[in-house]
């Protein structure tokens, strides 16, 4: 019972949102609530901070009242998604040095080979073609700026 409660996603997310509500309240507390010109910058955040905590407690309460048996998460699926997200984040960081074209090609290559288990040759062809396509559509045809790196593109 206690294990199911702790592992329940609703309880965890409600606790996180309650913490956010408390943070909003504490952060907004020193700001003026009301001044000569009318409501101050704390007026709105203080109210929705309190409401966030109340809603979170309500969600925890309803979850306890009707506690379902904790489902075993599909860790394989979650790790696949997290690896994709991590690769996406790393490619964004690399854009500072390598620029959009190379970083995006690397991300595409990684996703096709590692996440979708396709042949590396095919992945390389798609990565180069997609990166080139983006470059032709955005900076070349539409004059839209993309992140550039040490190579100037």
């Amino acid at each position, binding site marked *: 019972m206690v294990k199911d409660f702790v592992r329940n*996603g*609703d309880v965890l*997310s409600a606790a996180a*949102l309650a913490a*956010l509500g408390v943070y*909003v309240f504490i*952060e*907004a507390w020193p*700001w*003026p609530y*009301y*001044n000569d*010109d*009318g*409501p*101050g*910058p704390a*007026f*709105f*955040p203080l109210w*929705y901070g309190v*409401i*966030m905590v109340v*809603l*979170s407690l*309500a*969600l925890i309460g*309803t979850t306890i009242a009707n506690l379902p048996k904790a489902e075993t998460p*599909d860790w*394989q*699926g*979650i790790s*696949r*998604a997290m690896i*994709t*997200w991590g690769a*996406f*984040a790393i490619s*964004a960081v690399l*854009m*500072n040095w390598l620029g*959009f074209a190379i970083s*995006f090609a690397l*991300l*595409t290559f990684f*996703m*096709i080979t590692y*996440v*979708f288990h*396709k042949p590396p040759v095919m992945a390389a062809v*798609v*990565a180069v073609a*997609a990166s080139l396509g*983006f470059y032709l559509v*955005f900076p070349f045809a*539409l004059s*839209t*700026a*993309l*992140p550039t790196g040490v190579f100037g593109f």
Partner: protein
Amino acid sequence: MDVLGGLLHGFSVALQPANLWWCFVGCFLGTVVGILPGLGPAATIALLLPLTFKMDPAGGIIMLAGIYYGAKYGGSTTSILLNIPGESSSVVTCIDGHAMAKNGRAGPALGIAAIASFVAGTVGILLLTVMAPPVAVFALQFSSPEYFALMCLGLALVVLLSGPSLIKGLMALFLGLWLTSIGTDLFSAQARFIFGQSELLGGMDFVVVAIGVFAIAEVLASVDAGDKTHMLPVPKGMRNLLPSWEELKACRFAFLNGSITGFIIGILPGAGAAISSFIAYGIEKAFSKHPEKFGTGVPEGVAAPEGANNADSGGALVPLLTLGIPGGGTTAIMLSALVLWGVRPGPLLMTESPDIFWGLVASMYIGNVVLLILNLPLVPVFAQILRLPVHVLFPIILGISLVGAYGVSGRMFDIGLLIGFGLLGYIMVKLKYPTAPLILGFVLGDAMERALRQSLTMSQGDLSILVRGWISATMLACAVLILLLPLLGRFNKARVQAIAEGG
């Protein structure tokens, strides 16, 4: 000059070869801009504005207006096909439009969006033609309390978008309200929740948040599903790529609803196309014989918001042209363009510059036909995007997302935010939190806070100002009613059961 005489004069201006050409250029550019997330109509008009300085003002405003309403046509394409809303007004189209695409009805969804845009866009212009002066006078009655009530009504629709758990919907809504308050408070210059990051002083852009919680989250959830992820089905044959007669018949009320809701809300400065599309969707669901099917891919769920989104353009031009009050960012840039050409929008525009007022109105009738001709034949072409295998499509979606986020401000910081919101959206999907209320809160929260604070400043803290006027009182009563209905046990049980049956 009466309305008919003015309109005939307008057609004589708009049908001149040069103006027809600028109308086509504007519509085409607008469609392209609408398809590409991050490059919105406001940015495009701002970019092209210097090119129009040497143009004839009538041709210039015809082209800029073409970009404005053309972008709204194009905005539905990526919402339906890739679940990427290019504009805030396209968020609602994602709900049923992308569900239709998943059900193998991408072509009909695009077709319905184009037809709804044409019908509602034309109705919007028709209403602009005949109702501009009297309606503008009514809109002048809207003060801060009325705007606050309007925002409350929009937010109350969270109930209709929440899914089985109302608490989760409300929590997502308040998360959106918090996110929109990040940045500098315009009343007091107080920096709020910026975590020491100067980049957050200007707040976060809608495009970054929406692409993160919709598009990136969709890709991550699909990768999570692994073998269960299949290519979205695209049926063969032109007949299957266009909406059926039954689907169009089912959308009759949605076309009307979108047209009227979009036009009325478009007139109100600051309300914007996003709220009109949300409200049209809410009305459509509330009056539907099968509300449980909304969210699973019903054509009315595409027709109503897309129609409202386009009728809004006609409405937004009412205060711009008759009062000189821009309703949003794009119309504000159009106002500055008119001023730069030496044209003064206002009650005298119709008599002082009939070429511009009536030429623009007439060109919008022509522009809507141009857009329909441009868009319907392209539906099968756009639908082919879904034939791409997922291992090619997903990196491309991530690439478009990166370009969209970077295009907002040219800062790597926005890409960092995009990554964060992508993770947030994925967590919300995994934990079955609805993402639409978060976006609704983010889009409307800022305007709502501003309206409430202005109201209380006007009344020196007296809350009764919010219900003193009949317009605000009626809208607040409707909002409260919508929020209280689920508390009635029987209603909520039926609502939850209906949503569960609808999948």
